[in-house]
């Protein structure tokens, strides 16, 4: 998956090994498998947080993995205009391209490794859709969106 990659990881700062005296490893409390569904105008998603208690997710409430999907020409789908209030949505594109627009003047095109972070706050309308060129040509897309 593209996202952002580096040719030589060794030049990056390394995360130091935890201090064995003070490190308290987090144990797995539960594993869930995301059921598959459809979002908006028919975008295939995995509902990553389905079946998990909101108290365990707090401050997160929702996570969808959109795709991986291979489109035929004319097939890409997005969401219609819809409202939000009271939370934030973050969409991280692993592979592919999405267009976003909102009633607050925010928006643009996000692609491989980009993130759009939308605070709905008191209220906003927005739309997410694959760009027209992708609709014409077909192509692939993978993204994760959390709220």
């Amino acid at each position, binding site marked *: 998956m593209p996202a952002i990659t580096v040719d030589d990881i060794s030049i990056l700062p390394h995360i130091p090994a935890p201090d064995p005296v003070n490190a308290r490893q*987090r144990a797995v409390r539960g594993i869930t498998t995301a059921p598959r569904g459809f979002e908006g105008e028919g975008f295939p998603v995995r509902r990553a947080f389905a079946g998990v208690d909101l108290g365990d997710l707090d401050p997160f409430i929702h996570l969808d993995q959109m795709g991986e999907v291979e489109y035929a020409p004319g097939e890409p789908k997005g969401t219609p205009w819809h409202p939000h209030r009271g939370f934030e949505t973050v969409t991280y594109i692993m592979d592919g391209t999405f267009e976003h627009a909102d009633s607050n003047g925010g928006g643009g095109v996000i692609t491989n490794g980009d993130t759009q972070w939308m605070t709905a706050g008191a209220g906003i309308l927005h739309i997410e859709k694959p760009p027209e060129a992708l609709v014409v040509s077909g192509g692939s897309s993978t993204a994760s969106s959390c*709220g």
Partner: protein
Amino acid sequence: MNLPKAQKWSPPRYQDIRAGEVGLLASADGGALVRVIAGEVAGHAGPGSTYTPMSLVHATLSPEAELEMPWRADYNALAYVMAGAGTVGTERIPVQTGQLAVLGPGNTLTVGANRTQESRSPNLDILILGGRPIREPVAWAGPFVMNTREEVIQAFADYQAGRLGSIPAVHGAPTELSESQPTGPAPNA
């Protein structure tokens, strides 16, 4: 992410975070690339601006790589596998594409990539999320996440009344209803 009661009425905001802006780190064994989108890992911050403290991380682990990293004890910890197969925790609980691990208390977390991966996803791509819990009542319906049922009903009413904003104009189209009547006789009159 949820917003605390005091910030649910904040003005809307949009952050455009480009791939090249994220914080980049390597695991101690050099086999994992860690992208910090928001919050921080081992003192390295990501670009996302958050209302409550949280960290958002996307890690790509090569086969057999292990990523051990500090994770604030006052945060929760969630690990979601976007692609690949691996393990979570030092007890090496198996996880694969589409699975979420909820982690318990502690200040360090560990994930590992299996030696054998599917050819279509040669690495383990995992999202690691955590934040300080807000611990307020949640009333959630459709696109609205509020504290009380009344606030959700109000949100639906406000939306119907057009108080959540209006759809921006496209291609110079009129933003209000525009009507005109033809002048002169119709073509076939």
